[in-house]
C-alpha cells in the first residue's frame, strides 16, 4: 500500500525536529564524542554534587529578645511584645508572629513564608528592629536579634567524647583535650560552626561559709572586692633610659595558682590578717554553677550491654551552606583518627553519635542501586519484547538521560538527595518510552516491504522523523502535568520541588537522546534483515499480549 509512495519519494522530506536531529547526528563523528561527554558529565555530577538526605527547605525566621529586668509578663506584653509585634507586621513576607511575655523578658519570634530568601529575611528583620530603636521604652536592655540559620544551626556530625571505663579522666582534662580537637576540626575545609555541649570548664571556686563570715564580721561584698583588687591584668608600661632606649616593665597578675587565691587577705582583724581560705573553701574545680551536663551510655565492641552512665562532651560540627556533607564528614572523621593515639594515652573514648554525611551517602547509594536494578529489569523486559540489540540501544539511552538530568541539576545548584533520586526513579518508567517508540518504529521499518531498496541511513532518519510529532505531544503532555507542581507552596511544596524540577528535564533529555543516539546506535548495531519479514513483529506482539494476559 505505502510501498508505491516510498518508491516515488526516494528523497524523504523531513517534517519534524526529530528527523532533523537524527540526520544531523547520524553520520557525524562527533556524536560518539558527545555521548561520551554526556556520560562523563553525569559521572562528574554524580561524584561531586553535594549530597544530603532531604532537600533543603528555605525556612527563614528569627527571634527578637528584649530583656527588661524586674518586669512582670503583663508589663512586658504591653510595653515590649505588643509594640514590637505591630512593627514587625510591616515586614513583607512574614507568615506568623509569635510573641512570648515572661518575667523579665519578652521574645518575639517571626516565621517567614517557606521559600523566602534567607539573607533578605534576616536583613529585613534586623532592619525593622533597628529603625525603631528610638521608640524603645526606657529601662529595657539592647534587643538581641537572632536569625535562624539552619545550615549553621543543624550540625551534620556530632561526636561524644567520654572517659573510657576504668580510666580516671577529669572533666577539666577531658574539656581541654576536646577544645584542642575542636580547633583542628574547625580548620577542616567547609566546616562552619562547632560547639561543645556538656563541657565543664576549669574554675577556682570560692565557697564562702556564712557562719565564719559573720564570726569575722565580714560581708560578701568585701570578699569580692578583695579578690578583684589583686586579680588584675594590666598592659606593660614603657620607660626610657638616659641614652634613649626603651625599658619595658609591667605588673604581673598577682594570682598564679589556686593557692594564691586562698592567700588573699580579706581583712585585718585585731591586727592579724584574715586570709580568704579562713572563711571560704577555695578549690580548683569545675564550673559548679553550670547545670547543663551531658551523659552517655554506650556499647563497646566486645560488650553487648550498655555501659554505665558516664559524663561526656558532645562536639557538634556544622558545614557551610551548599557544600558536600559527605566530604566534610569524612574529613572530620579523619581528624579524629589522627588523635587516636593521644586519646588512648589519656583514656578518652569517642563515639560518632550523628553523621548526616554518612546517612546522606547511604541514602543516595541505596537509591542509586535501586535505579540500576530498575534499569536492568527494564532492559531484560525489552530483550524479550524487542530483541537484545534493540534492548541494548534503549538501555544505553537511560544513563545518557540520567547523566544530562544530573548535570543540569548540578549546574542549577541543586543537591543530590532522596527526593532528587525519587524523581529520577519516577521518570525512569517514562523516559524509556521515547527511545522505545523510536526503536520500535526503526524495527518495523527494517522489517517492512521494500526495505531492500533503501539506504540504511535514509530509513533510520525516516523512521525517527515519522513518530516525531505524536511523541513530542505525548511527552509534552507529561511535562505539563509536572509543571504546576512547581508552584505548590509550603513545606511540602519545597520538599517535593526536585520532582517538578528534574522530571521535565529528564523527559526533554529523553526526547533528544532518543532522536540523536537511537538512530546513531541503530546504524552501528542493527542490520537490515536478509529478507523483509512481516510476520516477525506480529508474532512478537502476540507474545507480548500473552504476557499481559497472564498477569
Amino acid at each position, binding site marked *: 500500500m505505502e510501498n508505491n509512495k516510498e518508491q516515488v519519494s526516494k528523497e*524523504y522530506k523531513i*517534517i519534524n525536529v526529530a528527523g532533523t536531529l537524527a540526520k544531523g547526528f547520524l553520520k557525524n563523528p562527533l556524536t560518539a564524542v558527545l555521548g561520551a561527554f554526556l556520560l562523563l558529565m553525569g559521572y562528574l555530577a554524580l561524584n561531586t554534587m553535594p549530597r544530603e538526605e532531604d532537600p533543603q527547605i528555605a525556612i527563614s525566621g528569627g527571634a527578637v529578645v528584649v530583656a527588661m529586668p524586674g518586669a*512582670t*509578663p503583663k508589663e512586658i506584653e504591653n510595653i515590649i511584645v*505588643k509594640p514590637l509585634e505591630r512593627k514587625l*507586621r510591616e515586614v513583607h513576607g512574614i507568615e506568623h*508572629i509569635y*510573641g512570648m*511575655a515572661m518575667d523579665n523578658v519578652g521574645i518575639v519570634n517571626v516565621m517567614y513564608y517557606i521559600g523566602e530568601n534567607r539573607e533578605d529575611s534576616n536583613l529585613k528583620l534586623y532592619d525593622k528592629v533597628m529603625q525603631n530603636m528610638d521608640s524603645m521604652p526606657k529601662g529595657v536592655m539592647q534587643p538581641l536579634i537572632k536569625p535562624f540559620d539552619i545550615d549553621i544551626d*543543624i550540625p551534620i556530625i556530632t561526636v*561524644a567524647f567520654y572517659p573510657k571505663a576504668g580510666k580516671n579522666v577529669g572533666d577539666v582534662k577531658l*574539656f581541654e583535650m576536646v577544645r584542642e580537637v575542636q580547633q583542628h576540626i574547625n580548620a577542616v575545609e567547609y566546616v562552619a560552626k562547632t560547639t561543645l555541649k556538656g563541657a565543664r*570548664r576549669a*574554675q577556682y*571556686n*570560692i565557697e564562702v561559709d*556564712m*557562719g565564719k563570715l*559573720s564570726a569575722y564580721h565580714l*560581708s*560578701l*561584698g568585701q570578699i569580692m572586692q578583695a*579578690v*578583684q583588687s589583686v*586579680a588584675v*591584668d594590666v598592659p606593660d608600661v614603657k620607660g626610657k633610659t638616659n641614652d634613649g632606649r626603651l625599658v619595658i616593665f609591667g605588673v604581673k*597578675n598577682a*594570682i598564679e595558682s589556686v593557692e594564691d*587565691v586562698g592567700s588573699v587577705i580579706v581583712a585585718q582583724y585585731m591586727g592579724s590578717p584574715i586570709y580568704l581560705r579562713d572563711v*571560704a573553701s577555695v578549690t580548683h574545680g569545675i*564550673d559548679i554553677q553550670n*547545670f547543663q551536663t551531658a551523659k*552517655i*551510655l*554506650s*556499647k563497646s565492641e566486645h560488650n553487648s550491654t550498655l555501659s554505665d552512665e558516664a559524663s561526656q562532651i558532645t562536639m557538634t560540627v556544622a558545614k557551610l551552606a551548599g557544600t558536600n556533607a559527605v566530604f566534610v564528614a569524612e574529613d572530620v572523621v579523619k581528624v579524629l583518627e589522627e588523635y587516636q593515639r593521644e586519646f588512648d594515652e589519656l583514656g578518652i573514648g569517642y563515639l560518632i*553519635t550523628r553523621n548526616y554525611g554518612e546517612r546522606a551517602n547511604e541514602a543516595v547509594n541505596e537509591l542509586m542501586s*535501586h535505579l540500576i536494578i*530498575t534499569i536492568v529489569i*527494564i532492559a531484560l*523486559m525489552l530483550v524479550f519484547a524487542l530483541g537484545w540489540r534493540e534492548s541494548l540501544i534503549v538501555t544505553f539511552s537511560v544513563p545518557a538521560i540520567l547523566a544530562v538530568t544530573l548535570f543540569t541539576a548540578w549546574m542549577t545548584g541543586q543537591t543530590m538527595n*532522596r527526593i532528587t533520586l525519587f524523581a529520577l*526513579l*519516577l521518570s525512569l518508567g517514562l523516559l*524509556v518510552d521515547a527511545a*522505545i517508540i523510536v526503536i520500535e518504529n526503526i524495527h518495523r521499518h527494517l522489517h517492512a516491504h521494500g526495505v531492500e531498496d533503501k539506504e540504511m541511513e535514509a530509513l533510520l532518519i525516516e523512521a525517527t522523523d*515519522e513518530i516525531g510529532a*505524536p511523541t513530542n505531544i*505525548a511527552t509534552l*503532555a507529561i511535562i505539563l*502535568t*509536572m509543571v*504546576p507542581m512547581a*508552584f505548590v507552596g*509550603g*513545606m511540602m511544596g519545597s520538599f*517535593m520541588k526536585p520532582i517538578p524540577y528534574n522530571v521535565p528535564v529528564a523527559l526533554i533529555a529523553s526526547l533528544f537522546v532518543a532522536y540523536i543516539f537511537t538512530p546513531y546506535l541503530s546504524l552501528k548495531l542493527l542490520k537490515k534483515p536478509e529478507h523483509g519479514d512481516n510476520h516477525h513483529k*506480529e508474532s512478537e*506482539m502476540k507474545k507480548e*499480549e500473552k504476557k499481559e494476559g497472564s498477569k
Partner: protein
Amino acid sequence: MKNLESFIYNILNSKMKKKLVIVLTAAAFFLSLMMFPTKMVLAKMLPGKSANTFSIYVDTPAGSSIDQTKKVSACVIGFLKKEQEIMNIELFLGQGIPLDYAGLVKGASMKRTENVSEISVNLTDKHHRAEPSFLMVQRMRPAIQEACVPLVRGTNIKFIEQPSGPPTLASIVVEVHGENLSKIRELAVDVADTLSNTEGLVDIDIMADENFEKFELIPDKEKVARSGLSVKQVNNILYLAFEGMVIAHKNSKNSPDQINMFLVLDNDSKKLSKSNVDSLQSKLSSLNLMNMRGMMVPLSEVVNIRKVMSNYMIMHKDLSRMTNVIAETDMVSQVYPLLEARDVLLEKFEKDYIIEKAGFSTYMFDFTLIDRKTQEKFLIRWDGEMKVTLDTFRDLGGAFISALILIFLLLVIYYKSFAISGIVLLGSFLSLIGVIVGHWVANWFTTETFFLTATSLIGFIALIGISSRNSLLLIDFAKSLMECEGIKKRRAIAVAAATRAKPIALTAVAIILGSALLAGDPVFGGLGVALISGTVAAVFVSLLFVPVLMDNAKAMDFDKNPHCDVEDKNNISITK
C-alpha cells in the same frame, strides 16, 4: 491480536454492551470513591519511616530543679537500658540535644532551664533490625510514661521521631485564642482533656508553663536608706550569695580558656531547711551587708518576705493571645482522631457557648466560641500537621486541576475538537480508580496501615500525563485509519485499540517495573503504588472505556481524506 480486535468490535456493535462498559466504569469509580468515607483507605500526609534514631523530651513542670529533672530522666534511661537494639543513649540535662530537623520547629534550641532534658537514642542499623523505630516507640511509650511521669507531678515525656517529610510542631496543634487569659487556660485544659481521651493520640501537652510558689523580697525603702545601704547592693549580694557570680578571672598558658573565679556561699550555708517564709527569714538574718559606715546589717532587717504565685507566661500568635495544646498521633493518621475530638469538643462547649463554625478554607475545622454570659469570643484553631496537610492537598489539588486544563488545551490545539479532548481527559481521570483500589490492596500486604499520602497524589498527577498519552495514541491511530484507509468508524477503533495494545502494554510494563522499587519505600510507597495500580487501570480504561466513548462521539466521525499523508501514520498492514 485479532481476538482483541473482534472483542472490542463486538462491544462497539452492541448498544447493551456499550452501556454495560459505561455503567461498570461508573460503578467502579463511585465504589472506589466510597473507600474514603468507609475508611477502607485512610489518608495521611506522610507515613512514618523507620529510622536509626529517636529522641525523648522530658519536661518537668516550670520551677523544678535539675535534680528532679535528672530523676525522671534516669527513670526513662532505666527503661531504655533494657532494650537490645539500642546502641547508645545520650542524656542532655538542662539543654536540648544537638539540633535536628524535628527540634528546629519544636523549639529545642531555646531550652536552657533546669526543668528540661533531652535524651537522644541511637539504634542499630535499620536494615538489620526487625522492629521499625516507630513500633519500638509505640511499644515503649506507655510503659515509660506510666512509670516515670508520676515521679515529679506534672511531668511531660514526649517521644520525638524523625519526621519523614518536613517537620511540624506536632501532629495536632489546637490553638485557643482569646483575650481573657484565665479563660483561655481553662479552655486549653478542656481541649487537652478531650485529646487525652481520644484514641490514637499520645504525648498531649499544654504549651504553657505551670505556676509555682515563689517568695518576693520587698525591700523596705526607708529601712534600706536609714541603714546606709542601697537597693542595688541588696540585689547584688542576694544574687552573689545564692546564685554566685564570676568575680574575677585569670589567663592561663596551660588552659584553653580563661579560668574564672566564682564566688558563692557554700552548699551548707545556702541550703534552706524548708520552703517557707520562716526558714528563708532565718537564712537571710545570717547574711550580712556592710553599710557605708562599715557596720554590718542583716539582710532580713531591710526586706519583707511575701509568698506569691509565679506569673504565667503570655503567648501571642499573630498579635492575639493564645495557648497551644499539642498532641502526637500513635501510628494513625491525624485526620480521624482530630474529627473525633472535634465532635466531642463541640458537644462539650455547646452548653456554655454559642458556637460558630468556620467556613470552607484550610482552617475549615476551626470554630469560634461566644460565651453565653459575657459575650467573650474565643477561637479554637486546628493547626500543625492538619493545616499543612490541608494546605498541601489544596495546592496539589490545584496543581492537578491546572495539569488537567493544560493537557486539555494542548489536546484542543492538537485535535481542534473539544469532544475528543474531553474523552482523553475523562479517560485519564479514571485512573483514579486504580490509585484508590491499589492503596486498599497494598494495605492487605503491609503490617501497618498503608495510607494514601501526598506522594500518592503526585503519582496520580503524573498518571494523568501517562494515561492521556495512551488515549492520544489510540485516537491518533483510529483517525488516520479512517482518513487514510477509509475504514469504517467502529472497525477502525477496534483495529486501533488492538494495534496500540502492544506499545500501551509495553510502556505500562516499563512504568510498573520502574515503580516496583518505589513501592517499598515508606515515604514514596504511595507514589509507587499509585503509579503501578493507576497504570493497570489506565490500560483497561484506554483499551475498553475510551473506545466506547470514541464510538459515541460525533467528533470522531472522519471521512476519507485525499490529502492524507500515509507516511506519517503507522503501517496498518501489520494487523491485516
